[in-house]
């Protein structure tokens, strides 16, 4: 819709906001909205002051009053105070003829468009696959392919070099050469690359056009062929087997094998979705291990199709099917497929909103591995980095669009050993996070920078150089960000864990491996960590290198950073001439990173200013607004002092120049006046309710309610105590490494019970205080402040107070290790012995590993019946009747 381009800055795409959009259109683009009728009616209205009217237009109606009223509408005014009778009359007279476009039509069209836009903002399936690719030439050089230009319609081939300046984090250097670029007709949605023997074939997809380029390290990119698809194309995929073969799928449901230069061959056509009606025309194609078998997917599942069989009669083998794969949730849909030819010749990655699956095409319908990727937005981009070294892990990077998340999943196996996930999902930094790690900006600059950084992601790629993994991310604004991650070696620990063979690891990967000996760590300039002064460059030795450098990828000379500012975004940026001197504050990122960011922010600002020049701005004259009168000598003095204080950054306190302070009258001590009248007065000051309560109290009207309340309170306290004791035990396993067995032993002793009881009575507040290291506040608590959950009745009167001290000490000791940084070698056990044959599935149907099952996302399951509180309710009465007897922690 055309008019939305005017509203570029209006971020809301709630379809129900269409009235606001229409209002804006009528206000801002009157000539377009009412052009025709205003030509016709124009002669009959006169909008200036009445004085001169007579001369020119005898026939016209005087409208200046109405006009001045309409002018007011630009501001927010109260419709009740400001109303114009004449306008209402005109409105009922003309409202159905004055519009060029009937408002009903405009409204419904606008609504439709907004619905689509809000859908797109949440999830735009056209972008699946991502428009960013990296083709490595050698260890340190490669070609980055990305879209540029204001409409993302310029394809850039940019040679970049990866530099490793010593121990410092590596950085991408794109300044070597200018990119070779091609202007296309439409926005680039997907870039797919395939290279064979150093020769690279690139397929690019926009909505209705697909093109294929070819290049290599020595050869400049050249366009081979372009085809247009009648229905919107949803996928291109370059063959990893034969150079120049490309699969194209479109919304019509057809898949074509495009042999560049030799025509298209239709290999599959589907009218409907594969397995059930998912109301989606999105299709996807991937090659598989056989060059003449492809994977054909839609939202409901994926099938293997052989080209050699005639398209009409090929049924295909189901590889993945939403409804029949174990543990699929309702509403789960396939979002992305990827052939993992580099990592394993027969593996495919399939992702849904909730999970990621590794499928083996020889073993259809049985996932080799399933993760819950824990991403909030659906993953649309992925990059897979095969394990280069033996014993390494294959890394799967999933990227989402709207939330810019990148999640790293790792797995190993698939050949001799069964597939096995290594470690839990790890989230990488997002562009939005990076602003927080930079020196603070002035608010009005922070805002546009944050807006720019928050634009949705449009692509993801990565490459591995030795021990480093470099992850690049493209946003829809055209920026490319990268971060490098380094394999962390644990100092002193041999790479292989010592105790090996005795461990059995069931084929269901129930537990994420606690024993991986090396893992990737994001480059963290953490502000949370204890040593946040240490920049990535000064990381001590080779042990834990923490190289997080979210950097703006620069292209060409820095002047050509793709900071395109769309014309629509015009926010008044009140004068901003200060140069960015304040940036050198040494913080977490390396100086190089900071420099790159600084340049990027400056570019952004410049571009904004250029864009903002054309548009008129509303400005308020502030000169003299805060001007003291000249004759006031005291004011002059005050101002001077104020200035000096500001200079020295201290407070200006009242001095002789200030007005004499009026003494505060002494406080009335209400307690001292005990007679009924005074009490009544005191209470009356606190409000009517209080007063009424006092009155009823005095009359004795509310005895029964009071008793009831007291009883209820007691009951509640009892329940609270019970519940608190329950979760204390769980808490215990995080705060203490004290074994429950020894506690049981203690319980039988004479002092034991009290230590446990006091443990039970420890409230969360105190615990929190302890955890914050607030020992002084926490230790004497039991005496003077009643704990939140413990109540006086609960404490046995004869409770010995002495044993509490050791407990307190014991507790106090804990925060020490709680604050230990976790440098120590993690629990290690040997590589598992698995009774699984080669290429067998790692999981049984129906036995999807529990640990991989949702911890986060499956909460809404309604399948659960009401819980039976057997443990708590049984325990309750016995304890409340005889508080002295403590039961064991786990016994129910």
């Amino acid at each position, binding site marked *: 819709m055309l008019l939305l381009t005017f509203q570029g800055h209006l971020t809301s795409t709630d379809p129900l906001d269409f009235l606001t959009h229409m209002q804006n259109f009528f206000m801002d683009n009157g000539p377009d909205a009412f052009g025709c009728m205003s030509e016709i009616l124009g002669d009959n209205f006169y909008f200036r002051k009445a004085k001169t009217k007579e001369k020119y237009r005898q026939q016209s109606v005087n409208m200046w009053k109405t006009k001045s009223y309409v002018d007011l509408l630009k501001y927010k005014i109260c419709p009740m105070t400001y109303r114009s009778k004449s306008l209402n009359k005109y409105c009922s007279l003309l409202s159905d003829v004055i519009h060029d476009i009937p408002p009903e039509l405009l409204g419904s069209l606008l609504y439709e468009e907004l619905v689509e836009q809000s859908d797109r903002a949440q999830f735009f399936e056209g972008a699946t696959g991502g428009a960013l690719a990296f083709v490595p030439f050698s260890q340190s050089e490669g070609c980055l392919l990305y879209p540029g230009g204001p409409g993302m319609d310029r394809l850039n081939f940019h040679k970049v070099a990866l530099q490793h300046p010593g121990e410092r984090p590596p950085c991408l250097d794109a300044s070597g050469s200018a990119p070779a670029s091609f202007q296309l007709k439409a926005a680039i949605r997907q870039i797919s690359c395939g290279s064979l023997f150093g020769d690279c074939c690139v397929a690019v997809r926009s909505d209705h056009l697909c093109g294929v380029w070819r290049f290599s390290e020595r050869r400049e990119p050249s366009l081979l062929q372009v085809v247009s698809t009648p229905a919107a194309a949803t996928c291109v995929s370059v063959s990893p087997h034969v150079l120049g073969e490309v699969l194209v799928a479109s919304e019509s449901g057809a898949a074509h094998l495009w042999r560049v230069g030799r025509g298209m061959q239709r290999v599959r056509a589907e009218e409907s979705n594969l397995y059930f009606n998912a109301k989606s025309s999105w299709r996807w194609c991937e090659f598989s291990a056989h060059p003449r078998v492809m994977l054909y997917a839609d939202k409901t599942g994926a099938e293997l199709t052989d080209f050699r069989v005639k398209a009409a009669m090929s049924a295909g083998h189901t590889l993945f099917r939403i409804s029949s794969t174990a543990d699929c949730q309702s509403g789960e849909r396939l979002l992305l497929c990827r052939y993992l030819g580099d990592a394993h010749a027969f593996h495919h990655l399939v992702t849904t909103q909730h999970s990621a699956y590794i499928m083996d095409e020889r073993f259809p319908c049985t996932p080799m591995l399933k993760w819950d990727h824990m991403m909030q937005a659906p993953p649309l981009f992925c990059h897979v980095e095969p394990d280069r070294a033996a014993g390494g892990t294959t890394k799967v990077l999933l990227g989402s669009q709207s939330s810019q998340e990148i999640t790293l999943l790792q797995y190993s196996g698939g050949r001799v050993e069964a597939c096995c996930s290594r470690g839990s999902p790890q989230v990488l930094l997002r562009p939005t996070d990076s602003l927080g790690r930079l020196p603070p900006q002035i608010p009005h600059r922070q805002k546009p920078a944050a807006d720019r950084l928050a634009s949705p992601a449009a692509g993801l790629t990565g490459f591995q150089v030795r021990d480093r993994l470099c992850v690049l991310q493209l946003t829809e604004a055209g920026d490319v960000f990268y971060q490098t991650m380094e394999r962390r070696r644990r100092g002193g620990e041999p790479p292989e864990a010592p105790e090996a063979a005795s461990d059995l690891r069931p084929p269901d990967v129930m537990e994420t491996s606690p024993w991986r000996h090396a893992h990737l760590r994001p480059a963290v300039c953490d502000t949370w960590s204890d040593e946040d002064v240490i920049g990535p460059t000064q990381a001590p030795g080779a042990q834990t290198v923490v190289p997080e450098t979210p950097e703006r990828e620069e292209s060409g000379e820095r002047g050509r950073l793709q900071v395109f500012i769309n014309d629509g975004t015009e926010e008044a940026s009140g004068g901003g001439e200060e140069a960015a001197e304040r940036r050198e504050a040494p913080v977490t990122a390396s100086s190089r990173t900071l420099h790159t960011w600084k340049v990027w922010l400056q570019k952004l600002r410049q571009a904004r200013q250029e864009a903002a020049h054309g548009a008129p701005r509303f400005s308020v004259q502030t000169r003299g607004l805060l001007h003291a009168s000249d004759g006031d000598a005291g004011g002059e003095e005050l101002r001077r002092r104020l200035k000096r204080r500001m200079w020295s950054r201290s407070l200006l306190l009242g001095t002789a120049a200030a007005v004499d302070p009026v003494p505060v009258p002494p406080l009335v001590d209400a307690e001292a006046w005990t007679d009924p009248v005074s009490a009544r007065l005191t209470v009356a000051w606190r409000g009517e309710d209080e007063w009424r309560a006092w009155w009823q109290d005095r009359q004795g009207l509310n005895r029964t309610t009071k008793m009831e309340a007291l009883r209820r309170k007691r009951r509640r306290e009892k329940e609270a105590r019970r519940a608190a004791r329950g979760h204390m035990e769980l808490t215990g396993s995080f705060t203490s*490494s004290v074994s429950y067995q020894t506690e049981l032993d203690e319980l039988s002793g004479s002092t034991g019970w009290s230590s446990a009881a006091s443990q039970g009575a420890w409230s969360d507040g105190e615990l929190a205080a302890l955890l914050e290291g607030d020992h002084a506040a926490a230790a004497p608590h039991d005496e003077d402040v009643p704990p939140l959950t413990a109540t006086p009745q609960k404490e046995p009167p004869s409770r010995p107070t002495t044993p509490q001290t050791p407990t307190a000490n014991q507790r106090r000791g804990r925060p020490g290790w709680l604050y230990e940084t976790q440098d120590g070698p993690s629990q290690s056990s040997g590589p598992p012995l698995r009774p699984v044959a080669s290429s067998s599935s790692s999981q049984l149907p129906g036995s999807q590993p529990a640990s991989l099952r949702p911890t986060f996302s499956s909460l809404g399951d309604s399948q659960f019946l009401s819980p039976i509180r057997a443990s708590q309710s049984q325990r309750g009465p016995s304890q409340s009747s005889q508080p002295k007897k403590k039961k064991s922690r786990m016994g129910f």
Partner: protein
Amino acid sequence: MDALDELLGPPVDLEDESDSSDNSSRKRHKSKLPLAKPLCAEGQTESGFHKTCRTCLEHIREAMLHHRWQEAAEYMVSYTQVLEDRNKGRALPNKELIWRISTEILHHLSHSTVKDYNIIYERMKHSGVKHYLMICLEHSFHLMLHGQIEGAKQQLSVAESWRHGKVSSSQHQRHKLIQAYRSLLDYMIWCDKKSTLSTNNFVFDSDNQAMHTYFRHASVNLQDILKNPGIWDPFILCYVEMLEFYGDNEEALKVLNDYAYDNSFPPNPNAQVYVYQFLKRHNAPEKKLIKVLRNLQILVPSHELMLEYSYLLLQSEKTSDTEKALGVLLEMLDFACWRSNLDVWTCLKAVTHQLLLREDGEMTVCKHMTLRKDWWPALHFTSFHAEKDREESSKLLEVKASLAEILCPGRALKYTADEMPT
């Protein structure tokens, strides 16, 4: 007390329904794709208690996803208070959440002990009946990982005898899994006993007896379980090994055949491989082996046993078998993983030479190549391939070059054994 007061107050129970059904006065447009439910959705009317829990959960999530386990553990200390939520709809998911998050965090804390795990598992097991079996299973896996086979077995035995209410289908399935794993552990103990028996020449009768008991326990269960359609690879291997030890080869073969050829089971190439391996161990005639391999070839033409299959075919006297071998080898070479395998190419060379000795040999080769002729040159015989093969293995280059002309006659191939003029 505030949080508790609110918690116990009557309106809390209704709150969940009200905020899930309708978010605000005007209904939000619903997306076409059902998105993953946000973990920490803000309710419209939210008590302070729920708000703290939600915030805490957000922090835990953030910390866990960034692998800051220590921090997550610190938040977890407070998060257990969520169990006090009396809302029936939320209590169960909350319990599951606590269980999963806690164990995950404990996995990554360097100083977590088995005792910590035990506390979590035992406590969570009994606080939500729904998860009892799953937690038992996970607990036993954890014990297995730490080498406590006996402990794990005990966990599984307890779970096996556990019953609650009506047996739902998922519960039934879990029961089966638990049985299967218990038998697997029986097998492991059996293996231990066997190895001690074999090292000690002097055998006590009681030891032998105990070993048999374990075998009986395991076999009864496994026999039962293997009747259910599914993929039971590790279990069937154990069972077959035990049967073979006691000399019951017929039963073993029957079990394997059922597993491989029963149509109600999902297609499983491994099952065929197991049959083949079993037959080979027992010196079955070649005919039987070829039959098994033929079935496997239909399922997985790229399997590594196909090389063996083609050798077998080549050795047999029948002429049609040579042709079959050609088909098998060509199909293998279609796949990426065999493309530069010298053995396959050499075998192919032998087959074609044998075929070409016959008069209709050329025709046969042509017939097999018709479907491949338009993409095989690009797949195998480009000048790039020649260059690469020359670098990696000159032997392969030689074999391939000699085959290029035979397989793709009449095409000007750039794949030659001669040095390229550069």
